[in-house]
């Protein structure tokens, strides 16, 4: 952090030599975000998590290319690769071979590698979009509650408490369980994806909302908010231009920590059979299928389990690093 020397005394403009010094320095200021990024770059664990997150996102985006690199696709059945006598994949280690890098599943002999890379699209996509939904709701409602206070805050805070106290899993199961095949102009897979996003997003916004509310209450008392008010700024301007920029750091951090929670949520719902369904390859649904046969073919269970584990770990490491970078004074 560069502290510029006290320039000029009592309204006297800076001396020419001081101006020259200032001009020689880099004129662009370093924003707090820039400083946080410089700090994050030095945190190797967080950077490893970040690189892994980027790789996972690339894997989801380029799932077709990765599958064709292996020479397989996620839905073709390979009955010939299953031992008819023992109902296990032919060859050791769950059928791992040069053609099937992570083996094949049971009982259909579908390629696990391509199902995993395609599954990343659903896991990351649903978790990502539902986190976005949660952030939009959480930030707007949290800021309104925190800034206006009074009965508005009371109503919104009790609503958040109510949401957090809900038996979320049971409710989601019952909502998703009674789902018709077509609704809201959507059907089949896209309807399931849309509903998963809505349900997961709906139940995770109060976490963001509470944090945003607390931070807004703290920021509201700062003098720069009074300064804006004394200039005649509207509440809208104060909320979005004065307070929101100061909330970006906690929002980014908690979003990064909410994504893995939502990945687990989606996987849990799919595992319980109310999320994504066969033949769509979701990681949770794969674990659901693998549970039937894990005693004879544990590899089929381990691969999607590891995929979830690595993804969640990567996001958490990155999110923790981000938090430390934005707020180095916070204790671990």
């Amino acid at each position, binding site marked *: 952090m560069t502290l510029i020397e006290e*320039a000029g005394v009592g*309204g006297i403009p800076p001396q020419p030599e001081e101006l020259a010094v*200032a001009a020689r320095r880099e*004129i662009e*200021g370093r924003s707090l975000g820039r400083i946080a990024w410089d700090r994050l770059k030095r945190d190797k664990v967080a950077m490893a998590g970040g690189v892994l997150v980027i790789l996972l996102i690339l894997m989801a985006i380029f799932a077709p290319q990765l599958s064709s690199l292996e020479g397989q696709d996620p839905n073709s059945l390979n009955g010939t690769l299953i031992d008819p006598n023992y109902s296990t994949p032919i060859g050791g280690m769950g059928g791992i071979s040069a053609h099937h890098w992570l083996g094949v599943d049971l009982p259909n002999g579908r390629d696990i590698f391509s199902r995993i890379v395609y599954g990343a699209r659903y896991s990351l996509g649903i978790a990502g979009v539902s986190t976005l939904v949660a952030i939009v709701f959480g930030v707007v409602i949290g800021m309104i509650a925190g800034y206006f206070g009074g009965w508005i805050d009371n109503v919104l805070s009790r609503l958040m408490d109510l949401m957090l106290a809900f038996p979320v899993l049971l409710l989601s199961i019952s909502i998703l369980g009674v789902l018709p095949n077509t609704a809201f102009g959507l059907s089949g897979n896209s309807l399931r994806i849309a509903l998963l996003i809505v349900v997961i997003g709906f139940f995770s916004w109060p976490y963001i909302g509470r944090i945003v509310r607390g931070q807004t209450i703290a920021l509201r008392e700062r003098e720069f908010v*009074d300064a804006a008010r*004394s200039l*005649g700024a509207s509440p809208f301007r104060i909320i979005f231009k004065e307070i929101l920029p100061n909330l970006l750091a906690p929002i980014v951090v908690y979003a990064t920590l909410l994504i893995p929670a939502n990945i687990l949520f989606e996987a849990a719902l799919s595992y319980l059979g109310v999320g994504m369904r066969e033949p769509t390859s979701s990681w949770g649904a794969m674990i659901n299928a693998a549970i039937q046969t894990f005693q004879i073919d544990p590899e089929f269970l381990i691969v999607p389990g590891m995929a979830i584990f690595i993804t969640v770990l990567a996001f958490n490491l990155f999110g923790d690093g981000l938090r430390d970078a934005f707020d180095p004074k916070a204790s671990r």
Partner: protein
Amino acid sequence: MSTDNYSSATVADAGRAASGAASEPLLSATGVQMHFPIRRGLLRRTVGAVRAVDGVDFEVRPGETLGLVGESGCGKSTTGRLLTRLLEPTGGTVKFEGRDITHMKPGELRPLRRDIQMVFQDPQSSLNPRHTIGSIVGAPFEIQGIKSPNGTKRAVQDLLALVGLSPEHYNRYPHEFSGGQRQRIGIARALALKPKLVVADEPVSALDVSIQAQVVNLFEDLQAELGLAYVFIAHDLSVVRHISDRVAVMYLGKIVEIANRDDLYSSARHPYTQALLSAVPIPDPDRKGEEAKRERILLTGDVPSPINPPSGCRFRTRCWKAQEICSTQEPPLVQLTSGPRPTGADHKVACHFPD
């Protein structure tokens, strides 16, 4: 100094001319009160009130500096916030240029905000850490929808030069500046819309002593140049003496004495003012001067709670002159006309037994 945007000479002349005694007050406060309700229980019933400001009267004339002094918690800052209408008074009236602004709605108040600006106490917290200096000082133009002839950026750079900062600092962030520089940024923001009145709420008390003098001098230079009126809130009597034309002394939400600076510092009449003045450190205690002989008045006890202030005169609980009448009758703030030493028209005291 770049003063392109300020026709400095004319404004300053106007200010000086207007500061003549007979001029119309720029701002006047009459019986202004701020009672913060205390709510308890499930139904949030009002069970009492913190009488932070409990009926103050004073006026500010164009181009002058009114110093407002008192202990912590006496209602100085609240008074400042009432004048800038960051708070809405619960009683009394505040008039600016003859217009009643006491209960104006935000929409009506917005154009008036140009004329009344505020400089805050804590330069750490008064600048948004996520905004550049350019956008902080440019915010007044943006919020008020004012277009500068040479563009906002140029106007901001002129303002930075005016307060003694380099215009090159436009793209920097507040955390890259020292406390004194940040306070200059806050001053530049307050001056952006060429206000007539600046309420400065302890603008130097968060600064190093060495920087305090620079910032106080900056306030004075700007006043001479732009013809500003200040309400200068402080607890440091030396700073107030340096900058003020008139001084008001507050105790527990009331003004106890208001006078021209020289009158107040040379012949304070209220016991509380005398006690405050006697507590100002003497620069050289070894010096055998008249000042060194003066006796220090030590006040005992604490400031009573503003939730339940003493009856009658509020200072009576700590006053060495207090008598029966002090607890029953509240002394009004008046010019002393009778008695051995009458005061001038500008010197008002609220005491039953003034010196």
